[in-house]
């Protein structure tokens, strides 16, 4: 039995690797995607374009604006002298924010009153707007601290000392790149297995295979293994790139990571075979892959946190293997989480994988005879 499975697996791998176009699909896109997305997918804003509208001639406003100009996050794009000029700048997306200082700014401050800084932000992307406002607040708080200290004012009752664990500089890349390991592995292994059976069905070679002494279970395993092996190889490559190219710190151990990878691949391949056994044509298989892949990515916590979803959708994410593997990859990379805190992430993936494989096997047999 083992020899037959291995023979089938070798045939499958040859079929994938021998076709130059599918070979290209396997190797090229994941590398390109890793490079492009690794650099592109970041929530950190580096050049917040802003305009200054300063009606105050005093030194305090100049001091505050110098802090904006000195910040690496902001880049001054325009200066305006009237209210009218503000709207077109924001409307046309020339600037993300306009900083407005009224005429009495310095005077108010010198008299010990509170002065106000008006900030208009383009809210078309509310996440960007929130980040911009956070940056503004950080700058203003720094200014306030210096002003209070310099003018002998009483400090507030308590100070905040904020520290960020595991990612002290809040680099989004440390979050996204390990996520890409899960994302790209899922895409490759799912596509490979989902389309493999449908292609043979359409070409008519599936019937020929049924005429051989191979049993349905053996065909199933032979079809599952290439996706598993190629997926594991790709994941390893991407992991190495994450560590040595993107310099994401790898603080955990190899074993907990690979145990997670194998259970994840099991579930991905299981889902792929299930799609494959349900579809008659390649188009249907592709559509099925799509219908699985897109929600799996959106509802995984890859880009936006699961905790923000409505409760009903959160329950739905428990069916998504990528949800668990994402946590495994990220915690092994950054938090060095030990084995015992990861068990409840491994077994759901294994269960999903086994259930999917059993259903796929049952569907295969029913469709064959």
């Amino acid at each position, binding site marked *: 039995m083992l020899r037959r499975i291995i023979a089938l697996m070798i045939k499958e791998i040859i079929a994938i690797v021998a076709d130059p*176009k599918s070979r290209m699909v396997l190797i090229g896109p994941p590398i390109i995607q890793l490079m*492009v997305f690794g650099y592109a997918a970041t929530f950190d804003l580096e050049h917040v374009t802003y305009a200054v509208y300063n009606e105050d001639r005093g030194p305090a406003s100049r001091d505050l604006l110098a802090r904006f100009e000195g910040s690496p996050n902001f880049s001054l794009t325009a200066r305006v002298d009237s209210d009218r000029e503000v709207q077109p700048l924001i409307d046309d997306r020339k600037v993300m924010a306009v900083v407005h200082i009224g005429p009495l700014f310095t005077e108010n401050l010198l008299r010990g009153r509170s002065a106000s800084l008006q900030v208009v932000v383009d809210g078309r992307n509310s996440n960007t707007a929130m*980040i911009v*406002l956070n940056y503004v607040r950080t700058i203003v708080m720094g200014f306030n601290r210096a002003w209070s200290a310099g003018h002998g004012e009483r400090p507030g009752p308590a100070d905040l000392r904020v*520290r960020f664990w595991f990612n002290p500089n809040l680099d989004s890349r440390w979050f996204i790149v390990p996520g890409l390991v899960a994302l790209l592995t899922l895409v490759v292994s799912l596509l490979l297995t989902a389309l493999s059976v449908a292609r043979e069905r359409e070409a008519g070679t599936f019937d020929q295979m049924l005429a051989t002494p191979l049993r349905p279970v053996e065909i199933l395993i032979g079809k599952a293994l290439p996706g598993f092996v190629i997926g594991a190889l790709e994941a390893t490559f991407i992991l190495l790139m994450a560590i040595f190219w993107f310099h994401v710190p790898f603080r955990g151990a190899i074993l907990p990571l690979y145990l997670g990878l194998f259970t994840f691949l099991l579930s991905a391949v299981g889902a792929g075979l299930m799609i494959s056994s349900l579809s008659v044509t390649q188009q249907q298989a592709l559509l099925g892959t799509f219908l699985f892949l897109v929600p799996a990515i959106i509802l995984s916590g890859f880009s936006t946190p699961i905790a923000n979803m409505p409760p009903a959708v959160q329950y739905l994410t428990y069916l998504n293997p990528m949800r668990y593997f994402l946590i495994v990859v990220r915690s092994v990379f950054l938090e060095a989480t030990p084995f015992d805190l990861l068990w409840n992430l491994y077994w759901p993936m294994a269960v999903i994988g086994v259930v999917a494989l059993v259903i796929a096997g049952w569907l295969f047999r029913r469709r064959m005879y």
Partner: protein
Amino acid sequence: MKGSRPTNGQARRSLMRLSGLMKKEAHQIVRDPSSIAIAFVLPVILLLLFGYGVSLDAEHVPVAIVVENASTETAGFVGGFQESRYFRPTIMHTIQAAEDALMRREVDGIVWLRSNFAREMLGPGPASIGVIVNGVDANQARIIDGYVTGVWLKWQERIALQQGRPLVIPVAVEQRIWFNAEMRSRNFLVPGLIAIIMTLIGALLTAMVVAREWERGTMEALMVTPVRVQEILLGKIIPYFILGMGGMALSVAMAVWVFDVPFRGSYAVLFGSSALFLLTALAMGLLISVVAKNQFVAGQIAIIATFLPAFILSGFLFDIGSMPTAVQYLTHIIAARYFVSILQTLFLAGDVWAVVAWNSLALGIMCLLFLVLVRRRMKKRLE
């Protein structure tokens, strides 16, 4: 024949052939309902999933508040967290317990009031409040940091009022967020999602159908008929264009009625730019299928070249201005980028011509380019 001006009779015959082709395509669409499913069922499912699944509004963030020495002062501070809808605080008494909870991912942050909090606060210097946030998800960490700062600022004001010494904050930030005052992330995510979903659907609709004809050899059969190449192309595009516009209308209706996203632009501009975008997406699908020749590869390219690039590089979620310069250039060849910008503006800001015109121009150029490329590839095959 080639190059000569078409006479009236030729034009009529061409129209006849075209309508014949479209009829054939329409029959195929009705017979295999998968393309109708792609055009109408897919957008509904995807928009529901995305609309509810993608959110950046954090609420009820679990935090541990370590109170080492309970007093009325600490209770006042903790009260700020208990009232806030952004937090779900758990009171703990030792920092070890809180750190364990953070490691087990039960809480996202820790607020630490040391045993000398009340004494320091009432005494000379400011007391120090330790805040630890799990920084793995950098964006979420930043949002939590902002929320904690908000609670802390409010608490300071309240304390100052109680002590009868109004707190003078030297510079107070007065923020105005245009277009989306309540900062609902759904308001910008849903229009962006429509652009992504339509990219997918446009490419999927055409990528598979033409590749299928090549694979089955029916394209050669079409080629030997008097039908011209551009007629074949038009005959493929028009039916799927109509299907796609139906899906688009459905998506916009859902955005407005289901997700309560305000629509401040005009429907005429929306219609025009959507038509342009859909043509571009369909042309891209055609190009993929003409290049790939077989469905297997066409399908894989359609998945790889549409959904993920549109998701990550279109600026719908990640700010394009913050990407490295090389990647920023790359985003210019992502059609969704232009449509995301148009849709976000039309929905939230209104008809801003500077945004709509430039992005439409870019879409028009891309569309033409794709069509020319498709046309050239098709001709080569005939020779």
